[in-house]
């Protein structure tokens, strides 16, 4: 899996998680496992996506699931590096930007939203 990697930098309350490479279906299972692990470990996940080189719908779905889980567990997720062309183009093409976040009261990680 040379073209996909999850790196974590620790801190007690928050943890920086950097995803590198392809956020696509061949790695979807690994991404899922990694995200579950991270979610169990910390209260605040700082997700860095700037090293991501490709993304597809399975990747986006996993990030949405993570976002929702953090909200339900009263944890926090902040995402950075998702405002580059790759993410903005793909989320626009697949119809992700929205007026209201999918979890009540939360801002959508794909732009727009909030109350």
């Amino acid at each position, binding site marked *: 899996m040379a073209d996909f990697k999850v790196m974590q930098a620790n801190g007690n309350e928050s943890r920086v998680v950097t995803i590198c490479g392809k956020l696509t279906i061949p790695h979807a299972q690994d991404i899922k496992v990694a995200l579950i692990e991270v*979610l169990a470990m910390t209260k605040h996940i700082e997700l860095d996506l700037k090293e991501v080189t490709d993304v597809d*719908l*399975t990747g986006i*779905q996993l990030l*949405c*699931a993570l976002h929702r889980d953090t909200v339900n567990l009263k944890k926090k997720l902040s995402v950075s590096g998702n405002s580059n062309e790759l993410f903005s*183009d793909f989320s626009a*093409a*697949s*119809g992700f930007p929205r007026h209201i976040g999918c979890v009540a009261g939360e801002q959508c990680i794909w732009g727009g939203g909030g109350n």
Partner: protein
Amino acid sequence: MIDKFRESFKEEASELLAELETALLDLEASPEDTELIGRVFRAMHTLKGSGAMFGFDDIATFTHEVETVFDLVRNGVIPVSRELINLTLAARDQVKGMLQADEGTGTWDSAVTTEITVSLKKLAAGSIQADVNCQTGTEVTNSQVSSSESTLSGDELTTAKQFDPSSEGVTYRIRFAPVENIFMNGTNPVSLLNELRGLGHCCVVAQTRNIPSLTKINPESCYLFWDVVLTTTCGINAIQDVFIFVEDDCELKIEQMQVGTGDISGDYRKLGEILVERGDLSTEDLGKTLSGMKRIGEVLVESGLVTPDRINSALTEQNHAKLLIKERQSQEVAASIRVPAEKLDILVNLVGELVTVQARLSQTAALKNESILTSIAEEVERLTGELRDNALNIRMLPIGSTFSKFQRLVRDLSNELGKEVEMTTEGAETELDKTVIERLSDPLVHLIRNSIDHGVELPEIRTAAGKDRKGTVHLTAVHSGDSVLITIKDDGAGLDKDAIRRKAVEKGLIQENAEMSEKEIYSLIFAPGFSTAQKVTSVSGRGVGMDVVKRAIDALRGTIELSSKRGNGTTITVRIPLTLAIIESLLVKIGDDRFVLPLSIVDECVELSRTDIANAHGRNLASVRGRLIPYIPLRERFRVTGEVPDIQQIVITRIDGIQVGFVVDHVIGEHQTVIKSLGKMYKNIEGISGATILGDGDVALILDIQQLARREELAERLAGGHRELLAA
């Protein structure tokens, strides 16, 4: 497994090819019809897609070329021309050849494929550049249409129609909900969304509410569905085309939205209404939320703006619309299933057996005279009757599919002969047993060929005769009792009575001085020996004798009649029974044996006394209401021994418009006859076409009335010849 899929592709492909041919011929008649262009495009598109999926790469590549051209036609870049239709028809035939080659029943020449492709490209050249590369709607960059997506989306984007926001498009609400395993079969929903964007102004919202928590998610499944609002001038078919390959793998809902002209920003629907209309919020929930407030109707009534009866009326309208929509949806659900024809044949055979057993039961019940048994027998009789009608009905097909095949025949043949002929049809929805339709096709092809070849004149001759340059062949099918009447009527030159007569004399079919009515002369063309060819095939045709056609019709227990007026055209009428499995018949008795005659050709039954026979002075002629009708004494023909009853019965039948009587001892009555073949050994016995099992288990033979009459005629002619020889 793969073979099974390939088989099912071939089946689908032959249906698509038939559809393609019909659509092309219709398109030739109305080149402006965008719906027809859409039909041609979709047929090609599906052939290409399924072909590629099941390993028919040659077909996929070839149809891709044709589809590309038709996409340009669809977008108005290339006009529909005769050349285009010719090429596409040729392409259709080539694909058919490719399929047949795969089955080992034909060959195909790759040079022809190349030739057609080159010609099509030539036709399209020069007009393509005007309409390419128009990205529209929201900003989709080229990088999104990545190479990993299917070539389809790339192609379609390059030829996508430029959407002009100022032009009036129709707005559709589309919900696209793919199945969870959509990624597994290689489909990328985003590429479909991009195709939609290519059609017009498009807003896409991904719905994420079904995405489960991380622990429950199967990362390779798709939990998303999409709501799309698309304003386009391309029509609903173009939208459906986008989803053509995933239609079985998704739920797709396309609705036209009632957006007023132009102004969407003004008073569009309320949020609640939109949610309700989309099915995202139930009316009840909306009602509950709004329960603090009074209902709009009540408010309006209280304020005196609208009277209660008007509110009621509006509510009724609402309910009506809802019911209508529900009804339509349930109709859509009532789909059809595909069953192999053999299974149906087995069913019909079994029903046939059941009918026989039921007849025995009824007979036994009648003999025993027990009320309980009788009532059971009656119930079984009723149910068997319904079952029989239903089983036969399942095998009924509209004759229209055969008609469309003839359209092509007429087109090609008239081109070949330099004639202008138009075929019109009527009654394409008329239903006939599947087997009958199949066996009827070839004889009809020959009759139509004859009409065009020998009937309809060349345009110049027609003009000189004061007729329209274009001749017509009118084909109709209509139900008539338990048969279907098919007529082929042309407005050509009509039959030449004298020429037929001359030829018949020349061939020794009639005496030179024979007295014959017009009808009798015309029916000579059906006589064996009038023409020399032996076999009906769908490819040959010209030169094939009408007697072969007649034999084919006879084999279907049908009749053929002909009328003609010199200079005005010829009408051929073919009467065919609806089904070959079970017939209504007349049961008769000769000595101890029972026989069956098809009821459809029986006119009446009259008595024949010894006095009548004596009065005829040895000739087999009976006088019925002043008319002399020839009869055939079946007792003699079948050499039935025993005493002849004092009063016999003549069953008068009508064969090719001529009345012929058959003398029997006794007419028993009408009978439901389940036809059984006689097997190989007795297949060729003259005068008998099959057998049936009677209620008491006895076998009755089914008389081949036509053949019996023909044999009698021949014997008569031979006897006539003898007499002449003796006289000489």
